[in-house]
């Protein structure tokens, strides 16, 4: 124990040496300080409330890793669409056709919650719950006024609604700590998972959010999409932890910067498919 403590002090000294500017400066309310931490559960969960700012599964290893997504059973159409996709991971930036990597296109729902949800705020309004996402600066509305999900999205008739990147969502509380969200109407240009797994516009995604305690929240996600999959499957489980100062940094995909990156680094580096199967979902980080 004493050895571990001494090692910890030594390591802390090393770390501070790596971040001299932070150690010297007085704290500003505008700056994000990674050494500010919370510990423990913070007490019991408040009832029917996800409000606050949360560190997401893509932020640090301090966030517990949840269950990975199941491997889907694809329909022939699903297989055909997937075969045309060249995902990041198996291909470098030069070889991928992932629209978010090449063009900064929005990840959309649910990928923005599966792959890059590093942090987010949740705000409860009288008739909806709003998710404010760090990555990309997107927001998502979940209606809680009792309305039903739309049944016509993306069709040719005049009553049909437009598909959207975040879809159409309705939510309800089951007991006081479980918030269940149903979503449909998802833009088919978005990829369901990082490996290029597709979804159709009328896919039905269900999230079961649980406020475990004051400082911990988790969500389990499933999808049912008969057009692309032969049966429903799990998109994984994801944990969130309370951010003590409720400050998160801006994290955007800027098209002009992405273009510069691709021209000066990504494309010259080339693409060498490594063909390694990725762990999909459940948290874990990119950069």
């Amino acid at each position, binding site marked *: *124990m004493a050895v*571990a403590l001494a*090692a*910890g002090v030594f*390591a*802390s000294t090393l*770390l501070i*040496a*790596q*971040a*001299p*500017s*932070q150690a010297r400066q007085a704290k500003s309310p505008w700056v*994000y300080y*990674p*050494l500010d*931490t919370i*510990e*423990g*559960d913070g007490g019991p969960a408040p009832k029917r409330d996800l409000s606050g700012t949360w560190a997401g599964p893509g*932020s*640090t*290893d*301090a*966030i*517990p*890793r949840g269950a990975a997504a199941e491997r889907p059973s694809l329909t022939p159409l699903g297989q055909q669409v997937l075969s045309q996709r060249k995902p*990041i991971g*198996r*291909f*470098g930036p*030069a070889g*991928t056709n992932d629209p978010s990597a090449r063009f900064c296109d929005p990840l959309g729902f649910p990928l923005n919650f599966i792959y890059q949800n590093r942090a987010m705020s949740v705000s409860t309004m009288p008739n909806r719950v709003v998710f404010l996402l760090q990555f990309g600066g997107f927001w998502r509305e979940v209606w809680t006024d009792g309305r039903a999900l739309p049944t016509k999205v993306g069709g040719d008739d005049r009553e049909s609604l437009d598909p959207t990147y975040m879809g159409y969502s309705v939510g309800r509380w089951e007991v006081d700590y479980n918030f269940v969200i149903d979503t449909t109407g998802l833009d088919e240009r978005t990829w369901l998972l990082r490996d290029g797994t597709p979804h159709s516009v009328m896919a039905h995604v269900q999230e079961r959010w649980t406020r475990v*305690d004051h*400082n*911990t929240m988790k969500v*389990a996600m499933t999808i049912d999409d008969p057009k692309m999959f032969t049966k429903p499957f799990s998109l994984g*489980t994801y944990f969130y*932890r309370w*951010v003590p100062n409720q400050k998160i*940094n*801006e*994290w*955007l*995909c*800027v098209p002009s910067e992405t273009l*510069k*990156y691709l021209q*000066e*680094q*990504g494309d*010259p*580096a*080339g*693409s*060498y498919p*490594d063909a390694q199967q990725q762990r999909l979902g459940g948290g874990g*980080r*990119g*950069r």
Partner: protein
Amino acid sequence: MRSSSASAAVGVEDEGMTMRLRVRAFVPMIAVVLALSTPIAAHHGDAAYADKPMEMKGCVVTEFDWMNPHSLIKFDYKTATGEVQKWTMEIGSPPSMTLLGWSRTTLRAGDVITAYVYQAKSGVKVGRTNKVILADGTVLADRDDSTPSRYGAEPPK
């Protein structure tokens, strides 16, 4: 391989199973050691780059682009034969690098650094880095695992 920690624990019900979330003290020793070894897979994977880094001393920074999705460090490198080569290497995004002690003003044109570069397999003079040593000896790592434990809990075993 994660930081060891002695700590309190809270039980979290997860699909009927009790998952123990260890709430750890800030002990990033192993993480710091790892920070000085290999780079973590970038958001786009590392398949395009060499497996081993080159140590490049006396690099003169010509441009530092603090940007998404990956910041770029451009520098001149003089070879043993006196040839001056122009290199570009990437690090992480500004929000992730901020956690590791980097900032927009960490590097300026004219700074002399030692870079550890994983060159692109294509043979062009671009690469990734996992470590930069500034002229004053400051070591700046590019690895998320050296991010300190901000949120308390450790991944369940």
